[in-house]
């Protein structure tokens, strides 16, 4: 397809030149005498050539640009698949906005080069030399004279391009500064107003605005020069035509038709030359973008299947952590230090501790979202020796941020399965996730769109939807990352009961801020600064002085206070 598109380029370019030559010849012919039959024949031949040329141009554009779009789609799909496969540690280090803009703008840069870039350049490569060669054959001096302004234009543009680049960067930067100033003022509006500093802020804003104006004017002047050079070169190409062509006509009867050809071809080579200049500008950007894309595609994931994984047929759900430690790259202290826990199959483990104590990180290591030090075992096998599919297939996970897709409720709950859940299946899940009343109030029931374009769920509803989604896979190990915080206390205890009993013998791991969540757990870990500070049952921990008791009392007081 690309080859066919490229093949169309010379055909359409030559057609364009042919049209000029036809008109030129016709003019000479007409000066000898008019002839209706000739004129009619001329017109229809011209239209036929024009038509054919149009078809080639259509095909050329269609094929080449389509190919560039296919490349774009392919690159985006590859990048997407790569991103989805990269471990959590990669994603915590890069902001998703950056990645999206990389995928978008880098791919676009590459596409611009492959599509319109190639098309215009090849067009110019045919158009310019052929036209020039033809004119050279007609009148060498004339052609030579025409080349000079065109070359001068090329050099002029090149000399100017650093300034244009500098000015437009300065404009962009000063615009960004304006944005920052506005952002600063509008988000700090209380201080601005409180101190009556509106005038000062306006003054500072005006300063930035003035700076931008200065850069804009400088850029305007640079663009003015570019514009003047470009069109000046075009005007000056007519000078040799007038001088040499006129001279030749006077001396040796150079036919007027040839003058016409020179004029018309000048119009026609002008745009391709400018296009090449544009192309020279985007080429380095395309190369840089391609490099970045390659880099991302070449990023290796450190969380991969082992070469010969141990297969797990029936997971019991027994977990044990041996000397598990983890530190974020560049962090001063480890996020987890030497964690030792045994979680018998079918038991409930509670994990509590102040914010930033490592609760979520501990849960992430269980799902092997991070590669940690020490050993995490599932049913006695180190999870590193298990296929990721087996390990994660055994887990149900409810994230802290209650992430849901903007999709239907049914699709969201069915996310972990290969098929959409049926209504009776969903009935059971909604009961277990204490979501019946809520779903009953959705206008479209299970098929209610949720998220930005649908209904907005409350925090508690989101959390319970996430729980339903995790339960849908009937996991042997259920992990809840502070996933009950927005659920009221009554529903909470009902839910925790359901989680244990619905999946006979299921292991449940609950991280929580609210201690009432873990109250009935078989074992509770108190994490402080990545270390296990205390462990035991609720009663045992209450009996001891420490973070757990203090926090329990505070939370009780808070509850009392709220009830007043």
């Amino acid at each position, binding site marked *: 397809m690309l080859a066919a598109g490229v093949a169309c380029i010379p055909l359409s370019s030559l057609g364009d030149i042919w*049209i000029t030559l036809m*008109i030129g010849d016709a003019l000479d012919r007409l*000066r000898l005498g*008019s002839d209706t039959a000739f*004129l009619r024949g*001329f017109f229809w031949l011209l*239209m036929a050539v*024009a*038509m054919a040329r*149009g078809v080639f141009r259509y*095909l050329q554009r*269609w094929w080449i*640009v389509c190919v560039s779009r296919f490349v774009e789609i392919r690159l985006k*799909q590859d990048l*997407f*698949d790569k*991103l989805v*496969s990269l471990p*959590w540690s990669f994603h915590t280090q890069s902001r*998703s906005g950056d*990645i999206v803009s990389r995928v*978008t703008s880098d791919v676009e840069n590459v596409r611009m080069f492959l599509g319109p870039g190639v098309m215009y350049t090849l067009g110019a490569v045919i158009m310019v030399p052929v036209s020039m060669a033809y004119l050279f054959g007609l009148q060498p001096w004339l052609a030579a004279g025409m080349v000079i302004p065109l070359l001068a234009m090329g050099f002029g543009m090149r000399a100017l391009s650093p300034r244009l680049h500098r000015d437009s960067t300065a404009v962009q930067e000063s615009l960004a500064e*304006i*944005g920052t100033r506005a*952002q*600063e*003022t*509008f988000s*700090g*509006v209380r*201080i601005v*107003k*409180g101190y*009556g*500093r509106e005038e000062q802020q306006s003054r500072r804003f005006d300063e930035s*605005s003035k700076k931008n104006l200065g850069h804009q*004017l400088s850029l*305007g002047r640079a*663009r*003015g020069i570019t*514009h003047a050079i470009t*069109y000046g070169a075009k*005007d000056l190409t*007519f*000078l040799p035509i*007038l*001088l040499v062509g*006129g001279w030749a006509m*006077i*001396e040796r*009867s150079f036919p*007027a038709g040839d003058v016409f050809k020179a004029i*018309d071809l000048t119009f026609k080579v002008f745009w391709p030359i400018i296009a090449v200049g544009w192309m020279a500008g985007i080429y380095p950007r395309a190369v840089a973008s391609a490099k970045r894309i390659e880099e991302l595609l070449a990023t290796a994931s450190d969380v991969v299947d082992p070469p010969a994984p141990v297969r797990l047929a029936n997971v019991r759900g027994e977990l044990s952590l041996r000397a598990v430690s983890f530190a974020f790259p560049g962090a001063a202290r480890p996020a987890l230090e030497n964690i030792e826990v045994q979680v018998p199959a079918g038991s409930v483990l509670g994990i509590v501790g102040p914010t930033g104590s490592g609760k979520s990180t501990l849960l992430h290591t269980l*799902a092997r*979202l991070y590669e940690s030090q020490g050993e995490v075992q599932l049913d006695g096998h180190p999870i590193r020796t298990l296929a990721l599919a087996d390990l*994660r297939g055994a887990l149900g996970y409810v994230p802290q*941020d209650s992430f849901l*897709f903007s999709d239907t409720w049914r699709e969201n709950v069915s996310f972990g399965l290969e098929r959409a859940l049926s209504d009776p299946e969903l009935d059971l899940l909604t009961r277990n996730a204490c979501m019946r009343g809520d779903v009953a109030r959705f206008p479209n029931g299970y098929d209610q769109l949720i998220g930005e374009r649908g209904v907005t769920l409350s925090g508690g509803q989101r959390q319970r939807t996430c729980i339903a989604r995790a339960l849908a896979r009937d996991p042997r190990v259920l992990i809840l990352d502070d996933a009950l915080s927005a659920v009221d206390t009554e529903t909470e205890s009902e839910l925790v009961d359901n989680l244990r009993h619905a999946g006979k013998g299921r292991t449940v791991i609950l991280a929580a801020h609210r201690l009432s969540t873990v109250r009935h757990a078989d074992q509770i870990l108190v994490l402080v600064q990545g270390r296990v500070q205390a462990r035991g049952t609720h009663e045992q921990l209450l009996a001891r002085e420490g973070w757990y008791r203090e926090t329990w009392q505070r939370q009780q007081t808070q509850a009392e*206070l*709220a009830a007043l």
Partner: protein
Amino acid sequence: MKYWKRRSAADKQRENAELGEEFVAGAWDTQIVGRLVRLAMPHRRLFLGTFAVLAVLFVLELAGPWIIRSAIDGPVADAITARGLDSIPFDSKPYINGLLVWVLVYVICSLMTVAMRYLEVAHLTKTGQVVVADLRSRVFSHIQSMDLAWFDKRPTGSLVTRVTSDVENLNEMFTSGLVTLAFDLVRIAFLLVILFTLHAKLAFVVLLLMPILIGVSLAFRGGARDAHRTVRGRLSKLNGYLQEVLSGIRVVQVFRQEHKVSQRFGGLLNQYLTANLRTIFLFALFFPALDLVVNGIQGATVWVAGADISSGELRIGVFFQFWFYVTMLLNPVRELGERYNVLQSAFASAERVFQVLDTKPSVESSMGASTGNGLVNGKAPAGNHVRFEGVSFDYLDGVPVLEDVSFEMKPGETTAVVGATGAGKSTLVNLLLRFYDPKAGRITVDGRDLRDWDLKALRRCFGIVLQEDFLFAGTVRENLDLGREDVTEESLELALEASRAELVIDALPDGLASSVAERGATLSTGERQLLAIARALAGQPSLVVLDEATASVDSGTEAQIEEATGNLLGGRTALVIAHRLSTVRNADQILVMHHGKLRERGTHDELLAKHGIYAKLYRLQFAEHSPART
């Protein structure tokens, strides 16, 4: 892939509704144009200059082909005629000289054109940017003057857009929109007239065929706009999904659904591709179609001119001139569609900008409250006696935040407010600073309703330290004096001493001249608090509003802050949202807010003895941080 099919109107509407794209009915709105013209009026000189440049340029552009024609029909044609006469030996010299004169004229004309081309862009840019810079400042000041309730309803990002990209778009309106469009129309009219005077029959052919060109251009414009909108919409859906998946990557990976999201993304990619194919198709069709029409016009011109050229009735030079002018005529016609689209998006921006400018702030100094210098009846507020009288307030109708709150702050006394999160503490501060006006009841300062004081004069009495103690980009000194005229070198120094912020300043590389990164990122929380206190002290306020920061700091800084707070409150009337035990202990009265109501009041000891809400709060908020517990 039905990219060649026109999508039904219903389809389009559904997709556009999904994307939340606003439909602008037409590209022309007389009212908006009127306002834009009024904006441009102060800069009419620039606009007149631009028009002058464009006019001169147009004349020069017309002159070029005329010179070529004159040379060809003049010396060149004469030479050919002369050579045809065999009677006299042919001497080319006079003709060459004649030609050279025209060449010289052409060179001069070209050089002038170059200068004008430069001015065309440089001056047009200047015109647009000057108007826009003006407008930008106005929009900024206006937004700044809006009340906080207005800010609450709008994300900061969208406000920033008003002074950045929307205003930039208006630049397009002034330059490539109004000015160029207006001038293009003038050019087209003039060129047509000139073509008619050159050769009426040929001009008639061109005029007859031109509507086809306009038709193609406009038909394409509609299709291209729709197609672009669809592409944009689908691209944003695509990017939205990518963003969504990235933010939920843990769920995707733990649930092992990489292939599912990949398929879904592939589906969106395909939709995006289909939309793109439609634009490619349109463009691939449009450009050749346009050229075909142009070639048709050219062919027809030659056909019609044929007989006249043969008979010598149409001289070849005139034909050339005509050809040049036709080219000049067709370019702006071709670009009509493009211009229309630019105008349309600029109108949308103009509408949004004017909407902002048309909204009046609801919290304003009352009319006639002050004489320009901020004095009421010749008096500036002393600002040391405050009374809340039955004040009620809600941010959202029906969700009361304050209910019937009354209390008095006597001159020189510290009033501490305590309560759980959401009890209404910050709202008290917001109302006292008149960020909002109460829904019922009133607040008086020096016995006069807040609404009757001049806003500026009133706020000048305040010293404010808020939780989000905000530092602006700039030097430390700028952040401390905030451009207040009443902050002197002396008062600043005293303030730094009293706030213990001297030590912070001393530790900075350039002292007061050090620059503060945005939002005070280079300073620690404790240091920012000290600086905020210094800032308040520097204005020698009579009324202090302090929202103590909750974030914990090390014990050394804690002691400094405690001392600084003491110095700030000492002898001044103060309203403090207290989070520090020393503050509540030393307060003259403590107000206990609970669910928007004032539930208890008294001194620390009185309230503790009550065993009520305060006692509970005390255990919750202060007891554990209290060094006095030991």
